[in-house]
């Protein structure tokens, strides 16, 4: 191919741009960002399943309030006495926060680089639903980010968006003595506000979309090429997404319909 291309009119004699192959690629390199996405995304998936297992204690037949609060209490004192007080809880929170910062930073960078490399052109949809879900990961992700802030203010910190009855004080007395925060009551009070319950349900649907594409991405980003591994991930992506959405979204619905009460 010749590199000197002239135009019909002769008015535009500029040869096609040649980019030197020697300048370094953008840093951090995209493949590194993708591996970070996959690693932090995997941490979040594990966390979501763990979190879900705790949440589902609201369905225990006898005294769910006690079980739920005991679990919240257990979480706070995990690895005692090896680590004193709430040390583990804070390490856990720190690690998750670090993952979140890395995940959001990488996600935004990947999105911006993708938009730039495509240029100002549209793309038609030929493929599967992964086209739409995959292209909107940044938006589902940012909705989840907003939700994380809301969720922490609503049920952990209790500031701004919490229910009127919210209390972070140790008001629930355990049978073996001592008292803990009544996390169960805070949850029920919050979901008794129907717009909040609806919001939680909608966000869980968004989370399911993010997971159904995200878990499939993990196998690609860690370089999984074996047919069986890939099939398993493709299947797990939808199964885990379904479990997370059904399990979590059922709770606000159960509170609204009177299935879960104080």
């Amino acid at each position: 191919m010749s590199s000197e291309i002239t135009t019909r009119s002769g008015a535009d004699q500029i040869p096609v741009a040649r980019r030197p192959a020697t300048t370094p690629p953008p840093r951090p390199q995209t493949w590194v960002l993708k591996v970070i996405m996959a690693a932090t995304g995997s941490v979040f998936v594990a966390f979501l399943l763990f979190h879900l297992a705790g949440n589902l204690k609201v369905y225990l037949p006898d005294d769910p309030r006690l079980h739920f609060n005991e679990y919240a209490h257990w979480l706070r004192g995990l690895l005692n006495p090896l680590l004193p007080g709430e040390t583990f809880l804070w390490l856990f929170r720190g690690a998750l926060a670090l993952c979140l910062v890395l995940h959001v930073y990488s996600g935004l960078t990947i999105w911006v680089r993708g938009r730039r490399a495509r240029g100002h052109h549209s793309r038609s949809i030929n493929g599967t639903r992964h086209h739409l879900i995959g292209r909107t990961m940044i938006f589902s992700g940012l909705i989840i980010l907003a939700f994380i802030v809301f969720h922490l203010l609503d049920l952990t910190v209790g500031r701004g968006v919490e229910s009127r009855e919210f209390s972070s004080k140790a008001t629930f007395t355990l049978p073996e003595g001592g008292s803990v925060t009544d996390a169960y009551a805070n949850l029920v009070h919050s979901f008794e506000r129907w717009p909040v319950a609806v919001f939680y349900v909608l966000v869980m649907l968004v989370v399911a979309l993010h997971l159904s594409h995200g878990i499939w991405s993990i196998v690609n980003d860690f370089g999984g090429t074996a047919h069986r591994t890939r099939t398993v991930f493709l299947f797990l992506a939808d199964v885990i997404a379904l479990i997370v959405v059904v399990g979590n979204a059922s709770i606000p619905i159960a509170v609204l319909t009177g299935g879960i009460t104080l």
Partner: protein
Amino acid sequence: MTDEKMRLILEVWRQDGPRAEGRFETHEITDATPEMSLLELLDRLNHKLVEEDVDPVAFESDCREGICGTCGLDVNGVPHGPEDNVPACGQHVRSFKSGDTVRFEPFRAKAFPVIRDLIVDRTGLDRIIQAGGTIAVDAGTAPDADTLQVTHDEAERALDFAGCIGCGACVAACPNGAAYLFTGAKLAHLALIPHGKQERAKRARSMVAQMEHEFGPCSQIGECALACPADIPLPAIAVVNRERIRAGFKRKAN
């Protein structure tokens, strides 16, 4: 069958040069036939334009039988045309009905600047190959046939990935303008055969770096493998990360 004539409206991208403004031009072809390839449809248009003393539409093609990778354009927004995994030269007018509008556009990606009309500069792909898509062997007398042993299955798998004809449709199909299918096909092919294994890690480092220099990230959308006329399978995109992660643990060239 053959004397069945179709009327098609052609919207064709015209652009005088790399820096010129482009625009769509509308033409009518009244004597298209179903068995014409889409490139023959453009040939027909060009005959007509020459008769009318208008510059013909510039587009690329060579073998016209799906082996060279020279043809490449968007048809109604889809790289190569409506049929999956078929190059433009193998796509036919029978995909359309008489009266349809067929829109020809150059491949669209930041890394593929338009040269003229439907022709784009795809040398970005060449630069990825230059960065490491080669093997070092003594050229001279041919070695004995059995000095390097490759099993039949491995040879077949390597050949599946070697099938890439370098057309660039994967990039034009990708919402991120990524060249993962192209790069992954080459990395996979060379990682499977003994000649390529010598510089496996070095190749992964340099090809991925060059790829990232001009092309986008992969978000597992999957459009590339549907557009690819060489049927390169989607796992090729995972090969890029597999090879690059592997190279991260290696100091040596292999």
